[in-house]
């Protein structure tokens, strides 16, 4: 009945079929243990249908479900120096990067795109926890700056989905300097009078939380997401006591006044549209059955093998 089920499903299905996930593959919900069909899980935006546990979702899958017709265009992010410190722990940093690129098919830990949500133009950025724990290095900083600049240029809002284990240690002080750099990006939006909505997803920690992820005009979190500066383990070691149930989870933060809302993933799109259209002083979006956009469901997309892969423009006509 709604937009998502009508027009986005084919796209999601296509994503999964093209990866040739066998029909009989299951995922066990880490929270309640229910065995979930991959296909069913994907249709449910990686949320367990039994217990509502929100599992990780890739930026591409999230955007496919969020944008009208699953159509979005990537915003180019300036490439930073590859290995500024010539960092080496047990492995060399470039080796770790290569492994992350191979594992995810993405070039870095953040994807910036633009498109329309219920005909509302937005720029969106999402951090990819599966890419080196979503860690914030120079690329992520550049991505957020590029997203803000693009939003200012197009006079549209920025929606940012945060997820990170913290800073990219392999970039040392330069990763730390992304805290002020991304704060400058937030300022650009403020000065342009454009909304910046931050959606905190599981987990958002460290320097990411202590910069752009806490500076949204509206702060929304996904249910049960861990959101913190210092992680629970570090705190337990410091204060030598057990932390209360649900500590640093989205609902706990909501209770402590640190968030505006905790919103289920399946309602996120509609909620974002509702809020953004009010902040942008636009009339309400048409709800319910919208006429089909003049596009075919995007079924035969090439797989995102190259990091530059972009949804073809012609599909948006």
């Amino acid at each position: 009945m709604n937009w998502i089920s009508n027009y986005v499903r084919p796209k999601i299905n296509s994503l999964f079929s093209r990866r040739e996930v066998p029909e009989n593959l299951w995922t066990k919900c880490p929270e309640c243990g229910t065995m979930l069909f991959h296909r069913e899980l994907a249709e449910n935006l990686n949320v367990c249908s039994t217990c509502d546990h929100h599992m990780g979702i890739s930026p591409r899958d999230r955007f496919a479900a969020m944008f009208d017709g699953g159509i979005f265009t990537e915003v180019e992010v300036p490439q930073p120096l590859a290995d500024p410190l010539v960092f080496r722990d047990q492995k060399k940093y470039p080796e770790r990067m290569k492994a992350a690129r191979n594992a995810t098919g993405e070039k870095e830990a953040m994807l910036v795109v633009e498109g329309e949500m219920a005909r509302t133009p937005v720029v969106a950025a999402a951090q990819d926890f599966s890419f080196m724990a979503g860690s914030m290095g120079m690329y992520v900083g550049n991505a957020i700056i590029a997203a803000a600049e693009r939003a200012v240029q197009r006079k549209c809002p920025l929606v940012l989905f945060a997820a990170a284990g913290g800073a990219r240690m392999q970039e040392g002080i330069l990763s730390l300097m992304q805290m002020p750099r991304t704060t400058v990006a937030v300022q650009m939006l403020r000065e342009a009078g454009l909304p910046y909505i931050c959606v905190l997803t599981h987990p958002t920690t460290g320097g990411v939380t202590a910069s752009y992820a806490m500076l949204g005009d509206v702060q929304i979190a996904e249910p049960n997401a861990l959101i913190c500066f210092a992680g629970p383990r570090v705190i337990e070691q410091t204060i030598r006591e057990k932390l209360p149930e649900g500590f640093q989870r989205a609902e706990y933060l909501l209770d402590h006044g640190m968030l505006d809302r905790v919103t289920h993933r399946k309602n996120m799109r509609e909620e974002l549209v509702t809020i953004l259209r009010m902040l942008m002083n636009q009339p309400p979006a048409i709800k319910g059955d919208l006429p089909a956009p003049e596009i075919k469901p995007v079924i035969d997309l090439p797989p995102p093998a190259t990091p530059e892969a972009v949804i073809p423009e012609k599909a948006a006509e």
Partner: protein
Amino acid sequence: MNYLEFEKPLSEIEGKAEELRALARGNKEMDVEKEAAALDKKAETLLKDLYKDLTPWRKCQVARHPDRPHCKDYIEGLFTDYTPLAGDRNFADDHAIMGGLARFNDNPVVVIGQEKGHDTKTRIERNFGMARPEGYRKAIRLMDLAHRFRLPVITLVDTPGAYPGKGAEERGQAEAIARATQKCLELAVPMVTVVIGEGGSGGAVALATANRIAMLEHSVYSVISPEGCASILWKDAEKMREAAEALRLTAQDLHKLGVIDRIIKEPLGGAQRGRRETVEAVGKAIEMMLKELTGRKPDWLIKDRRNKFLDMGSKGLAA
């Protein structure tokens, strides 16, 4: 004098010289001065040698040396009319961050810094320089005061990091740090920072997003402590030497990376061996940094600060 682990050979020589002199004080017949002077000489050579090329891990140890001058020492030594201002108007006054109105070279300023304390009692009172949200919110309030009354802001950074505690998290540690950084970037007045000891991650950035940043020669500034980095990447906290090396956290490397503007020379053997000298050298650096910014228009100051951070990352280091 507290000796660091790597200064142990030095402590033996200096100890011997001290012993000899103590003996001679008790026995007027004894003439030990020649012998003691020889030991002094030996000690000095060794000191020079030890400090000539400190490894990053040793620099971390020097940066954390308990006898180094701390924020309070700089405020007492360099400012007049210091009037501490307290509290975040919301929850508490955090003693890990001190600050207030003061005069620097007779000109009114706002000075803010982390204070670690110098003995057990004051260390506990100051929470070892690890601030809670109310500390950052106090800093925001003071920066705002400076902004409205057009006073330069001087910050002194010395913290292992923001405090990882239950209450701190509940009261929004991350948000407080983010807002403090944001406030730094909004200031229409000159802001200068000196890292005087440890620049510990986000807890430091919150007070260090300035137009000009200086570091003492043996201070460090890092995204994570070497011990923390070692336990995550090496899965072994004992690999802190390797981590300190890899993180490039020294003033010298940060200067090459374009993250800081100047390095303030420390006396031979580190700030702890020449506290007054160090305080004076920091004063000189603050004076020079402020000079570069005085007379600038509010917009220029904001833009200068923004561009400084936007431009970071264009320079890398060689292997």
